[in-house]
């Protein structure tokens, strides 16, 4: 299998409609016949990243690269950046607003869930410039 590259724009603002990019990626991974557990883990990571981009950064972009051995998801936004990454990685810590909480988000589980379901996770963030979350999910051979 050659490397497959996919790009998904994530629109900001509308939390109700969020999840479209993740849904599309999941469908593609299914069509490629990847293992169910790999698809599930990649989908959870992508969805959490997508929700974060909508809540905190007015959207962004997700680039997905699928190799025979791994899926690499790179989620980039031009939002406010994360002041304290260590704090943001703690379960239960959230800066989400009231609207997000009313919809069932803002439980402070987004980044921890990405960490939990990925094999590798990197956060590159600059205050006032944006954040890139890169996730690797290995595909068992």
């Amino acid at each position, binding site marked *: 299998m050659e490397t497959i590259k996919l790009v998904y724009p994530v629109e900001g603002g509308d939390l*109700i409609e969020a*999840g479209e990019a*993740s849904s599309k990626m999941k469908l593609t991974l299914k069509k490629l016949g990847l293992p*169910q557990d790999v698809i*599930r883990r990649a989908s959870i990571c992508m969805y959490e990243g997508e929700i974060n981009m909508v809540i905190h950064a007015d959207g962004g972009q997700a680039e997905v690269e699928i190799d025979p051995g791994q899926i690499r998801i790179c989620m980039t936004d031009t939002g406010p950046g994360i002041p304290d990454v260590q704090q943001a990685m703690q379960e239960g810590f959230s800066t989400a607003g009231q609207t997000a909480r009313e919809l*069932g988000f803002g439980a402070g589980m987004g980044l921890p869930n990405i960490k939990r379901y990925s094999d590798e996770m990197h956060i590159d963030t600059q205050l006032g410039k944006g954040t890139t979350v890169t996730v690797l999910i290995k595909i068992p051979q």
Partner: protein
Amino acid sequence: MTVQQAAARLGWTEFHLADPERRVSGGYAGDLLSWVMGRAGQDCAWFTIMSNQNVAAVALMADVACVVLTEGVRPDADLLRRAGEKGVNLLGTAEDTFTAAVRLARALEE
């Protein structure tokens, strides 16, 4: 046990059955979506009172077998539409979450 069998046995209302033969292997109860995403097991029945359309997206990503709206909560038109689009099994019961979960657990043990 399949979703359809569980629905028939436990008297769940079928709002949308996209995959009736999907197997149910456990349950998870929760309303905080990210918490559900992180903790709900694959192929479980997810009991919740949340009924906005994000429920369908979370069910799809977490790969649960079905969503069961408890306490008599009904899906709004947007959730029904999204469940249809995403192929999510969406059911409901008038029972409270605890009772519904206990009854499923007993049915799965038999």
